[in-house]
């Protein structure tokens, strides 16, 4: 329908010969910003549940994705690389040594071949990071930490273990009781291949029931100490006893 009467206009209004930016217009900018803030708030409220569902979808997609692009999406499955040092340290057959010392009867040094010659244990568990990501069913194998401790003979004063890493920066700790658990390994393989340098190889700690920051990469030193000396992240507020689902204010399903 075409209404022929001219639009009513205040007499002082000048005629508008062409489109212009006079007048108030529509506050689209404000609406966009407020709409986004509303969506953002909804996202924060339901995001945890949505990401859980997305994780399983993305995990199944990325399993069939030869390009690996989905692995780069949030929750696209797979590990994220965290390192506190300035580069990835590399050690191999010739220059790798794991020392066991501190309050022990028989301090020892192990080469890779020595570690491989000891009884191996293989565990398949989920890996849970304290920042939220979880990688299902990851296999680690290696020597039980308790095997090395028994071989060294812990002296009576020793109640805790301190771990050093050959990146020169990272440290971790466990109580002696935790360290003797059957699911704490000095890991040599991950998913049945030698642990790569990026994943902390050739030897990393694998503390199955704990958040993954406990599983120190590039493990080079095991020292029995009188009491627990908090590790690297624990100086920045992470819990020392890092049980998955029962620490760091998180409620994840246990991994072990």
């Amino acid at each position, binding site marked *: 329908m075409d209404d022929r009467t001219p639009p009513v206009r205040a007499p002082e209004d000048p005629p508008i010969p062409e489109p212009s930016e006079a007048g108030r217009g529509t506050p689209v900018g404000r609406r966009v910003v407020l709409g986004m803030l509303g969506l953002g708030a909804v*996202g924060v409220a339901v*995001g945890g549940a949505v*990401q859980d569902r997305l994780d399983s979808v993305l995990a199944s997609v990325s399993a069939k994705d030869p390009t690996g692009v989905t692995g*780069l999406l949030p929750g696209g499955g797979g590990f*994220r*690389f965290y390192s506190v040092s300035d*580069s990835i340290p590399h050690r191999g057959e010739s220059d790798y040594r794991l020392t066991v010392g501190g309050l022990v009867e028989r301090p020892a040094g192990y080469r890779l071949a020595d570690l491989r010659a000891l009884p191996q244990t293989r565990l398949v568990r989920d890996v849970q990071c304290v920042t939220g990501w979880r990688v299902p069913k990851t296999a680690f194998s290696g020597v039980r930490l308790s095997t090395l401790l028994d071989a060294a003979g812990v002296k009576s004063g020793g109640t805790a273990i301190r771990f050093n890493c050959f990146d020169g920066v990272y440290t971790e700790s466990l109580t002696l009781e935790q360290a003797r658990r059957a699911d704490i390994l000095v890991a040599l393989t991950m998913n049945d291949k030698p642990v790569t340098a*990026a994943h902390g190889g050739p030897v990393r700690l694998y503390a199955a029931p704990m958040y993954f920051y406990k599983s120190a990469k590039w493990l080079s030193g095991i020292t029995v100490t009188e009491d627990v000396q908090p590790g690297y992240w624990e100086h920045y507020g992470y819990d020392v006893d890092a049980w998955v689902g029962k620490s760091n204010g998180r409620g994840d399903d246990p991994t072990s």
Partner: protein
Amino acid sequence: MTPLRDTAVAARLRRFTPAETWVHRSVTWLLGICVLTGGCLYFPPLAEIVGRRRTVVTLHEYSGIAVPVPVLLGLLSRAFRRDLGRLGRFFPHDWRWLGTALRRRRREPSLAGKFNAGQKLYAAFATGALLIMAGTGVLMWFPRLAPLVWRTGSTFVHDWLALAFVAVIAGHVWFASIDPEARRGLRTGYVPRWWAREEHPLWRPEAPQDPPAEGP
């Protein structure tokens, strides 16, 4: 450098005041650091090259939380406030610009004021995105502020919005890269009149126009 003809000086028009170019430059640097460090925290290949996680996290946190500061300082400038007003409001021709862009994949310059509808939407999106990224970032930065479900939700929003934001910023940089006069406008504050007539014909500059005595 482009040779500057005498006529060119007279033919130039003030598009941004020094305060506005300062705001844009500061936001560019801070947001640039924030995006780069974010990439280094997020993409395993980059993370492996860079390492130094705590340093990168600290840079990311402080550059991110600082992004709004130059914008807030910019509010002291009347020209900046006026341009915010222009960016925030849609007029009938803006809807037509948007329709043309969506239907014919064409940016119709004849329907643009000082800012076209795409630039207006970008400004609004960037504002909203910055506020959300800052809010969710703070929730993750200080874990004791909020219960765990909020932090997980914040991570979800922060991660996905970051991807979208980077895509949109890439578009912003792309449009800048194909228009040297627009870039010059942000660098020097001045644009040629022919450019303003062609790209922003509905722009009515504020009164007194005093082109600079010297070239940039």
